[in-house]
């Protein structure tokens, strides 16, 4: 079995060299800007996970974040079915992809997938709540590896099998995350101002830096929760409507969950940031 974090560590020198080559290929003033970006990433970028509202409620009520395998294990305990059976049902045609990557690694079923976040809401299409995590969530900074995008797109062959060479080429340890980010985004860094650096770090679902880590995510490891303003407004609108109209079950459940999360904010156990 492969060790993802050891592979990332072995790649540190190559990442430094690639970063230096990028700096050497541009002018001195440009290199200075790229270098400032790298320094900013190292100092500012945080680890985040995008989650759905019910995940947040689980954290606020004292539970922990569950990855696909942990969630399946919970269902297996309740239903008496096996993990693999439930996993195949949940993932269906994507089962091979998910397991070909994760289960090729030591402790792969403990992996959590997050990203490097410089101040935005991460990738919020499905996970509208961006949990910004404290670094202390990692047992050790060696329990994390970064990739310049989606690991399943970067490291799997067209037939869905894992390409070890691509894993070795793509991963970076925590100590070199800022070099990887800078070398991958030279053009974007030079074509924008420092104000937009958070968007350089996460710009689309195909352009972000994935962080794969092992660690327990509970409320105490969440520094703050970022929410897109439109989503925040949608939920308050639904709450207002619930005062005057009879909402459907799913709507009332969502308002109820949202108020549960807000109770955490009002009680000061979780910090909320609404992003425009």
């Amino acid at each position, binding site marked *: 079995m492969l060790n993802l974090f050891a592979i990332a560590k072995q790649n540190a020198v190559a990442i430094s060299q690639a970063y230096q080559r990028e700096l050497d290929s541009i002018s001195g003033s440009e290199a200075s800007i790229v270098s400032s970006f790298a320094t900013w990433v190292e100092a500012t970028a945080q680890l985040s996970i995008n989650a759905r509202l019910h995940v947040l409620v689980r954290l606020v009520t004292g539970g922990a974040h569950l990855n696909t395998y942990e969630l399946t294990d919970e269902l297996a305990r309740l239903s008496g079915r096996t993990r693999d059976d439930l996993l195949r049902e*949940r993932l*269906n045609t994507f089962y091979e992809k998910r397991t070909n990557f994760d289960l090729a690694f030591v402790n792969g079923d403990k992996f959590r997938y997050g990203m490097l976040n410089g101040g935005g809401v991460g990738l919020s299409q*499905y*996970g509208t709540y961006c949990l910004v995590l404290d670094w202390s969530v990692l047992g050790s900074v060696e329990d994390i590896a970064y990739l310049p995008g989606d690991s399943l797109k970067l490291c799997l062959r067209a037939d869905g099998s894992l390409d070890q060479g691509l894993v070795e080429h793509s991963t970076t340890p925590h100590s070199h995350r800022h070099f990887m980010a800078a070398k991958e985004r030279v053009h974007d860094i030079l074509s924008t101002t420092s104000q937009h650096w958070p968007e350089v770090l996460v710009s689309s679902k195909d352009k972000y830096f994935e962080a794969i880590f092992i660690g327990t995510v509970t409320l105490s490891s969440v520094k703050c929760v970022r929410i897109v303003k439109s989503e925040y407004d949608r939920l308050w609108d639904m709450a207002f409507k619930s*005062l005057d109209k009879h909402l459907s079950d799913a709507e009332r459940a969502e308002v109820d969950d949202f*108020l549960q999360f807000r109770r955490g904010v009002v009680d000061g156990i979780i910090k909320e940031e609404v992003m425009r």
Partner: protein
Amino acid sequence: MRLRLEAISVPDGVGIVRSGQTLRLARPPYLLINSPVISEDSLQEAILKAGFSASNVGFQNWEELIRFLNSKVVEYRERQGRPIPNSISPKDIIDMAPPEVVNGFLERVESELIPQHHFDHAEAILLAVLSNQSLLERPMVLTRATQLLRLIKEARDTSSHGIETLARRDLRFPSLIKHNEVERSDRLARAIETRGCVFVPAS
């Protein structure tokens, strides 16, 4: 089947639905405006990264599908021991709302609920605002809530005055008045009352 549920997030009743060639995100409040068209790539992302489960259930129409999604949320919440409340009290909502949201609610009380004569709901919201301890530090909000309560009282008075005026004018049978038939109709009514029957007895 017209619609096929391709993936579902049970806890929040969100589905990824194939309708013809199009994939849509169906989520509360299940309005078309809140159901964006999404890419095929997004389906994979939802299942692999966002905790959705693959599904393969067909439906004839959106009502059926929405009923299914709702039932799944109900089941999930019951399994969790957190049944969905039948209603949510204004106090629970106002207590959790930050001041800027409360302000927005007051605006909507004035621009939506009062003009639509939803006085009871409007009053319940305003009373929840006035009883909220954390808003005591915001006299502007409380003043506004008090003004709106007064506005509701005036609107209620105006509304009941209007009904009384209508009743006094007895405009219930405008056609009879127009055709000078009020007196005849009154005689007829009294005859029916005396007979205890609408039909005239056969002679």
